[in-house]
Every structure is written in structure tokens, then in C-alpha cells.
């Protein structure tokens, strides 16, 4: 089946009747996934949004529960659930893979994160294959295919005037029912593309296993500002803090993004900080991406979206690091 480009707007209008539909677009100068509005100009050709779509599942600030003291003087806890049906339309392979990684974190290993799960269950993922790549894109070096997101519910591939449409999951098939009026028979020609930026991941994990005390961390962290830019634009970074806001006799406990690059992140009550300088913090971040996550979940936590490469204020570049590791004899 194909979806003619002229029908996209109508389809999104239809989907918006029963769900919040997120599309890549520019909002006040920031490229991100934001709610579709009928009057929007279609910007599905944005190669890579500045902010990843992770906040659809893992908002930067998420209310977990209200608590407080009721009229009888008893403490109460009232869990929140603000999850609603959501569609992410036009997600790219890299960001789709980041959801796979977050699923591993939040939904496996003994505990299911109820807040993530509520949102995940209600998210329909519609991927669009990339026909263009940015200079910082390197997903195909991370074992991904820019034109194929196997875990997306629905995969679109872009031709000249239409998208091919394939449901890849049960959820996707069910969703396609309501798409029918906008689909037609046909096929599209999709140009094959690959990323210009290449890295070789062969042996990187094994070498990193032996590189905890390597001088590279001191060297690379010298220019690092220890800001949180890389972690906040990263689609897979999922660390969070838990905090609260009180108003008189009530309060809200929320969680919010946190960054392993911040000194406060591992600062313990008392004085001890196991990762006292930016060297330890930067090392932990890169080792987590390229080594620790694989130990735990069997995949790398970098999806090759290139956002940190693009946005780092001082050009700390994970692809350069991967190149360097490749050259080391450890």
C-alpha cells in the first residue's frame, strides 16, 4: 500500500481525533517532535530533530504521585497517570532504536517502570526511512539501517510523491484499519542511501573492557565542560532524578532528566563522590554507551543519531573516540 503525500495531512487529522499525534517540526526555533496541528506545513523531511522524541515516553519532568496530609491528618499518596494515546509520526531509525533501548531499561530486569509502561503501551510508532542523511549521521555503523526500523509499528518509505506503508506489528496492523481511506495500491521508488560518516565498532567493546584506566579519559575530558548537553539531546540517555515540590500540606513527587555529567549526580550525603571529576563522569558516560549497556542488555546504547556530535559546545565527538579506540593496542 502507499500513502500519497497529498493525503498525509488528512491522515494526521484523522489520527488526531483519537490520539495526540507528534510530528517533527520547528517550534520557536527548536526542531523537535511536537503535536501536529492541522494548519502545520509538513516538515517530515527534517533529517534529525535537535531534541529526540524520548520525552513522549520519558518526559523531562514527570509527575509520579501527589502526596500530602488529608483533613484527618493522615498522609496520603495518590499515583498519577497522565498517559494518553500518542502517535509518533515520522520517527527515524535511530530514534526508534533508542526506544528499544529504553524498553530494555524500563521494562526488564525484575522491575517494570509503571510510568514508562503506561506511556509505552499507548504509543504507536510510525517510522519514515531516511532518504537524506546529515553529516553527523552514523546509524549504519551502529548496525542500523536508516531506511528500516524493524521495531516500529508501521514503516513508511519515502518516494517522490508517496510513501510505501507496511505494518510491522500487530498494533500497526490494527492501526492501519483507520488509515485505509487514505491509502491506495501502488509502489514507490526509494533511493538507497548510506551514512557518510562511518565508524568501525569492531572490537570496540572488548577494548573498552580493558580501558577503564586508560589515559584517553584524562585527555578527552580536558576540554569537556561537564555540561549536560550531550545527555539531554541523546535519544537513549535515560538517567533521572526524583525530587519533589511542596505547596502547604500537599506535594508532588516527580522525576526529571538528570545527567551523569553533573557533579551532583553521584554526590552522596556526607562528602563522598565516587565520580569526583569530569574525567570519571565522561568515562562513565562513554563506557555506558559503548560497553556497560552491552554487558547488561546485549546492545550498544549509541544509535548513531549524531546529536551529541552536532551539539557538543567543545566538539567532544563519540565517533572520534570510537576511531581512537580502534587504533589503540590494548
Amino acid at each position, binding site marked *: 500500500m502507499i500513502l500519497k503525500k497529498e493525503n498525509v495531512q488528512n491522515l494526521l487529522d484523522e489520527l488526531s481525533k483519537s490520539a495526540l499525534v507528534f510530528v517533527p517540526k520547528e517550534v520557536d526555533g527548536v526542531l523537535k517532535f511536537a503535536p501536529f496541528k492541522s494548519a502545520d506545513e509538513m516538515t517530515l523531511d527534517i533529517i534529525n530533530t535537535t531534541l529526540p522524541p524520548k520525552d513522549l515516553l520519558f518526559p523531562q519532568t514527570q509527575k*509520579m*504521585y501527589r*502526596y*500530602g496530609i488529608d483533613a484527618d491528618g*493522615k*498522609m*496520603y*499518596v495518590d*499515583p498519577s497517570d497522565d498517559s494518553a494515546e500518542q502517535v509518533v509520526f515520522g520517527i527515524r531509525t535511530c530514534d526508534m532504536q533508542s526506544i528499544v533501548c529504553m524498553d530494555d*531499561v*524500563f521494562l526488564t*530486569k*525484575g*522491575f*517494570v*517502570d*509503571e*510510568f514508562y509502561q503506561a506511556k509505552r503501551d499507548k504509543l504507536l510508532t510510525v517510522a519514515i526511512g531516511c532518504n537524506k542523511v546529515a553529516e553527523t549521521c552514523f546509524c549504519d555503523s551502529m548496525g542500523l539501517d536508516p531506511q528500516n526500523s524493524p521495531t516500529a509499528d508501521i514503516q513508511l518509505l519515502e518516494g517522490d510523491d508517496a510513501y510505501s506503508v507496511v505494518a510491522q506489528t500487530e498494533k500497526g496492523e490494527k492501526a492501519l484499519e483507520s488509515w485505509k481511506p487514505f491509502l491506495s495500491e501502488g509502489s514507490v521508488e526509494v533511493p538507497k542511501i548510506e551514512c557518510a560518516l562511518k565508524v568501525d565498532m569492531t572490537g570496540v567493546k572488548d577494548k573498552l573492557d580493558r580501558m*577503564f*584506566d586508560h589515559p584517553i579519559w584524562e585527555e578527552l575530558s580536558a576540554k569537556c565542560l561537564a555540561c549536560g548537553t550531550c545527555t539531554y539531546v541523546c535519544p537513549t540517555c*535515560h*538517567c*533521572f*532524578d*526524583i*525530587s*519533589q515540590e*511542596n505547596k502547604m500540606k500537599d*506535594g508532588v513527587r516527580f*522525576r526529571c532528566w*538528570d545527567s*551523569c555529567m553533573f557533579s551532583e*549526580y*553521584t*554526590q*552522596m*550525603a*556526607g562528602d*563522598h563522590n*565516587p*565520580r569526583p571529576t569530569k574525567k*570519571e563522569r565522561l568515562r*562513565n558516560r562513554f*563506557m*555506558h554507551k559503548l*560497553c*556497560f*549497556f*552491552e*554487558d*547488561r542488555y546485549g546492545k550498544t546504547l549509541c544509535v548513531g543519531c549524531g546529536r551529541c556530535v552536532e551539539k557538543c559546545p567543545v566538539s567532544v565527538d563519540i565517533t572520534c573516540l570510537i576511531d581512537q579506540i580502534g587504533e589503540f593496542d590494548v
Partner: protein
Amino acid sequence: MSKIEISHGCAFGEKPLIPQICNIIGIVEETSDVKTFRIQTPEGKKPFECRPGQLGMLSAMFTGESMFCVADQGDDYIEFTVKRVGMVTEELHSLSVGAQVGVRGPYGNWFPTESCKGRNMVFVAGGIGLAPVRAFLSYTLKHREDYGTITLVYSASNKDDLVFKKELFEVWPNEPDTHVNVSVYHACDGWEGEVCYTAPFLEKLGISTENAAAVLCGGPSLYRTCSEGLRKLGFADEDIITTLEMRMKCGVGKCGRCNIGGKFICLDGPVFTLAELAGLPSDV
């Protein structure tokens, strides 16, 4: 002597991030800045079942949450021993019996109570580090026939900083085949016992390693010196069990901050043997 086997990543649960409101039903002032809180649900039940060494998240609801090792438990309560070091603990210390707190858990793994069966147990702790050790020590005393000689080596900066004084001086020494050795770092009036650091104290006591397992918990410097001290006595790293501390927020291996390499202290730990830790990166 069978190998000590520690389970990792074995905790599980539903709705792990939402606390239940519980009551403080008892408070023991251990030292000027350490209190033990006995916690129970409003229905008079135990907040959760747990094994010795497991963790619980305790919250002063309006201030925040902090992770503690469950120091002891009974049929209808659990206990946390809390040192006043930050905002949350400050707030907890201001509470009195009857106050309401949030509790969630249990998290993390537990001491290898099974594979230590039949062994002589050597517990080594410093300061507030006795709290997690106590959980295991109490367990061995409750199951006395399963374990051999029980030896505790415990130190604190001075006499007033010793926690669990009642247990240390009245209860445990009277248990069968149980040896309690206490030292302080700084001499003071009214203290007639040992004055020395934990590691030399260990050496001085000349503890036998025969068929023994050691359990170690204390601050970074005690951890360093006493793991070395235990090795000098002849303990193999496989037979030294420790419990680690790191800043924790979620308790369920999601929020990220308590990792050592690919392991999360809150989920895979906090209990490890030194041999296991040797295989992990060193940022603790």
C-alpha cells in the same frame, strides 16, 4: 567448604516507585546523630518481606527519599538505622513515634545466608556500617545451629559513636559461641576497652580463617584497610562479603547513578564478594 554464592539482580516487584505510607512505631537513639526507626504499616503489618542485606527507600514525604539497608526485622516491622548527614535524614531525625513516613522496597540482593551455612562467621564493621551487618548477624543468631562460631569486630571513632550498644554489650555477647570485639579510635574517659583502628584490631585478634566467611562494611577507608587486613589474615577474596553504598534514586536499576560498570548497586548489589568486585571497574 562450598563456595559462597551471591545472587545478583534477583529483586523484583510491581509499581516499584510508589511508596506506601507507614508509621514509626519505635525510635532508638543510638548516638547523637544515629537513630533506629521501627516501621510498620497503619494496619500493624510489616511493610514488606525482605532478606538480610536488602534495601528499602525511606522517605520523609515532604523532603525526599533516601535508601537504607534494612537493619533488622521482626514479624510485623522492619528497622532502619539512619545517620543524620543530609536533608532527608535531618528531617527523619526530627520525627517522633507515630509520625508517618513513606516506605518502598525491598530492593537489591541479600547476604548469602544459604551458602554461608556451616561456616564460622566473621563480621567486621565500622561506625554506621554495623547497620547492614546487623541484618545478617541477627539472622545467623536466629538460625544459630546453621552457623559456627560468630565473631564481630566493630569499631567507631569514639565510645559515643558506637551504635546498637544494647546488642553489643548486653545481647550478643551472651549468645552461644559468639565473640564481640569492640574498639574505638580515640581514647576517652569511661572507655576501658581497645583503642585502635579496625584493621590493626583485626590483626591483633588473630582471627582464624578456618572454614570462615567474613562480612565487611564501613566507610571507604575502613573498607580499604580492612579488606587488606582480612587478606593478611588469610581470607580469600571469595570469602569476603561486603555491601556497597552509592547514591540511589530509583532503587530498581533504572535511574542510572549507582552503577559500577554494567552492574547497578541497587539491583545487582549491594552485596558482592571482593572477588566479584575485582572484576568490576573501580569507581566506588
